[in-house]
């Protein structure tokens, strides 16, 4: 059951081999059995899940089904879910029960997918290790002394340990791809605007994008299909038809041109991780792809630009967490200022405060031009690098992360080193491009992720390339020990 693909599970449900209620119960059992080790789930919604599973079973009988009807999934706790606590990993929203569904939540519900619960994450998605969560760190199932990556660490760890076949994630600066890499699973961040942001608690609005985490590209394609599409409630979502991702998964890769940016293979990259990535590229050559060295000259500017733009936007986005209408409020505020200062001082963790301060500074009168405006100009340069590259190649490949999963606590006191773990993923968000991470090797028992970057709206091409690789490799089928 644990190694079955979504299509196989769906076939089992349709044939009556097992019911959604049984399938759902089996994953609830696994969460209850294993999650005390991982801490990947903040809120388990088991009884609502069983109700939804029964409804899905009825729907399965009626024949009105989608590829996800009756399939359980875990939902990152950043997506508003009607009637369910939506904490965003923060004390600030520990008591916040969302009164409405995010568009992604609603779409998955309509498809008949069964939500098992809400997953742990870095507080307000700010982090690369899942250590900033108010609910405590998530452990990497491959080595519980190590981080799962972040910010979608709970979703990635849960899927890696097969506590759910699928999970949602969000990616502002690598938050789907980096934990997917560190946990040995498949994750895709679509083009900015492909998936609605409505109801997804904003970190950095111009960068945030939701996507699926799964064990294979094939499964990710099915879940992305259900999540993607124009939403009139999100002005930045794009009104363009969604490709049928499953249809092109098996397309031949002959003639595909892969670009390897030299900046992604330089200093800072773990040599063994680099070797694993190169081996994967060799496999692509065997599949008929051509490989070309390219350059993305402004790569080194991505992290600094990101750490101006993202904090600036978050400093404004998080202003609504003021203790007035919802969420955490300090005890006995003595006046308005005290209400603000203590509610926010007590409700937010250190990393969130650090970014609010950085962002507030970057937007201040007299600094705006030097920081925010400059960062936006850099962003244009980074985008232009990619536009230029995609004139010559179809897909850009490289490592997802410079190393494998690091130890819990190792980088907590060193934000800059922590930020550098996103060095290969952040530029993709700044440019708004689709990016993907797939398992491509193991180093010392820890997974290595291969990153695939596509041109705008070429999710289908990424999924196709990832799927073809997974047909000739078995990294994605490997499971961490102890979760059988």
């Amino acid at each position: 059951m644990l190694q079955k693909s979504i299509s196989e599970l769906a076939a089992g449900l349709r044939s009556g081999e097992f019911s959604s209620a049984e399938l759902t119960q089996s994953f609830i059992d696994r969460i209850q059995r294993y999650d005390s080790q991982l801490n990947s789930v903040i809120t388990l919604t088991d009884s609502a899940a069983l109700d939804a599973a029964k409804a899905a079973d009825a729907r399965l009988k009626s024949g009105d089904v989608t590829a996800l009807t009756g399939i359980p999934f875990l939902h990152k706790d950043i997506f508003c879910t009607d009637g369910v606590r939506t904490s965003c990993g923060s004390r600030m929203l520990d008591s916040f029960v969302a009164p409405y569904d995010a568009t992604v939540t609603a779409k998955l519900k309509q498809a008949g997918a069964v939500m098992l619960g809400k997953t742990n994450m870095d507080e307000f998605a700010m982090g690369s290790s899942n250590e900033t969560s108010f609910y405590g760190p998530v452990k990497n199932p491959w080595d519980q002394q190590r981080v799962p990556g972040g910010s979608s660490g709970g979703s990635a760890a849960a899927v890696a340990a097969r506590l759910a076949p699928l999970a949602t994630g969000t990616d502002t600066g690598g938050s789907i791809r980096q934990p997917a890499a560190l946990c040995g699973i498949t994750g895709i961040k679509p083009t900015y605007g492909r998936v609605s942001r409505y109801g997804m608690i904003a970190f950095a609005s111009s960068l945030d994008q939701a996507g699926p985490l799964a064990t294979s590209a094939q499964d990710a394609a099915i879940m992305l299909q259900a999540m993607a599409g124009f939403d009139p409630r999100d002005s930045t979502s794009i009104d363009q038809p969604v490709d049928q991702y499953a249809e092109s998964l098996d397309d031949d890769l002959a003639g595909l041109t892969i670009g390897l940016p030299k900046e992604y293979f330089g200093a800072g990259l773990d040599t063994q991780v680099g070797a694993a990535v190169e081996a994967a590229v060799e496999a692509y050559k065997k599949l008929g792809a051509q490989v070309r060295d390219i350059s993305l000259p402004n790569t080194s500017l991505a992290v600094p630009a990101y750490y101006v733009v993202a904090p600036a936007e978050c400093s404004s986005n998080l202003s609504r967490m003021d203790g007035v209408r919802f969420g955490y409020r300090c005890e006995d505020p003595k006046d308005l200022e005290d209400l603000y200062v203590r509610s926010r001082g007590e409700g937010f963790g250190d990393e969130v405060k650090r970014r609010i301060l950085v962002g507030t500074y970057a937007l201040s009168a007299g600094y705006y031009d030097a920081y925010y405006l400059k960062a936006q100009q850099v962003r244009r340069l980074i985008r232009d690098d990619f536009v230029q590259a995609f004139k010559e190649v179809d897909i850009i490949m490289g490592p997802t992360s410079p190393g494998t999963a690091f130890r819990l606590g190792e980088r907590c006191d060193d934000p800059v080193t922590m930020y550098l773990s996103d060095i290969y993923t952040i530029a993709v968000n700044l440019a708004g491009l689709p990016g993907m991470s797939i398992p491509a090797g193991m180093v010392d028992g820890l997974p290595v992720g291969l990153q695939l970057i596509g041109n705008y709206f070429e999710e289908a091409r990424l999924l196709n390339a990832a799927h073809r690789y997974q047909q000739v490799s078995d990294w994605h089928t490997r499971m961490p020990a102890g979760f059988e």
Partner: protein
Amino acid sequence: MEWEVVIGLEIHAQLATRSKIFSAAPTAYGAEPNTQACAVDLGLPGVLPVLNASVVSMAAKFGLATHSTVARRSVFARKNYFYPDLPKGYQISQFELPIVHGGYLDIDMQDGETRRIGITRAHLEEDAGKSLHEDFQDETGIDLNRAGTPLLEIVSEPDMRSAAEAVAYMKKIHALVRYLEICDGNMQEGSFRCDANVSIRPKGQQAFGTRAEIKNINSFRFVERAINYEVERQIEVIEGGGEVVQETRLYDADRDETRSMRSKEEANDYRYFPDPDLLPVELDQAFIDEIEKALPELPDAKRERFVQIYDLPRADATALTGSRELADYFERTVAATGGEGKLCANWVMGELSGVLNKEGRDISESPVSPELLGGMLQRISDGTISGKIAKQVFEAMWSGEGDADTIIEKKGLRQITDSGAIEKIIRDVLEANPKQVEQYRGGQEKLLGFFVGQVMKISQGKANPGEVNKILKQILSG
């Protein structure tokens, strides 16, 4: 020292949309607190704004009507500050790239002079909610019904030189937004309000003095009083050897004074930046042309037409075009009389406006329709009734007794034009006042008025005054 006053106004006009600027919640005034605020207005986590397209057309109309540039590309920006009735912790407004900029408006002053007031810009933004301090002990209530209401903030150049000019400008903008049907202009409900930037400088000096900003003034009268108070205050400060400080002040209408709210040092750094949740507003020329084609006739053009077509004095035309409703009422009245422009103007601006004012009613609530009024005025011009009798007829129409003809018949108010009947009354009057006849003939010609008065009295005002005069003179000279 002679001082020159420098005034610039920021007018907030609430745009007359059914739903809010970034959400589908209704904008209707006066509902129970927090019943007209949806998740977006409450600033719940995860919600996103979606621009109400009708505000764009409304702003474009305003721009075209004020000789401004309607920007092909404008950008919404976040103005960040904390306040309990500002749910998101920022207001969505426009900063560097407003939708309208660089226009002007000509205002007519009472001395007959015209002044041109520059319009720096007009930008779209959302209103905040309301903090309620009165009804709660030691607590503040928040009503977010108004949060997200669309506003057009119209910023003038510092081109006004007196409180009277500021009021004239504000009235003209008020009339204009109502002509354009983009704002209901209701000042009591806060649909139209302004902030005034006031400074003084020695006459002849080029550089501006330090200004104070008077916030949230919601009537024409208060604008005038607040500015006059503030000017006096600033003169006193400077002549007393002090300096005006840049600050925000509040006008207290009860005490007729302005009070300091916060100084420049306490002012917020709003950390404006483009709102990443909203795309830039991009307009093509065809859209702007369509709006221009659909613009109604504007006050200045209408006034010129009234002068031309109805042969009205300029002052009458200005008064009648002060609001679109008044102008429409006037034109319908003229149509009902078959073209008596001046007569209609006199009645609309005189009797009708008088009684409306007295009863505090708007012209749209007049019980006498333009058709009724026109029907009556026709009876003046065809000689059926005199102007004096018409006032009686008008009063009867006002109290709902029917149209002019019905009232004239019922009350027997028809003018006596039969010269035989008039002559008989005159002879009776002369017979009864032989002494006066003698005096008149002896040269005291001003007694003619006495005889006319007697005749009118006996005829109960119904004798045609022209006829009375004519026949009276004939007989007396005979």
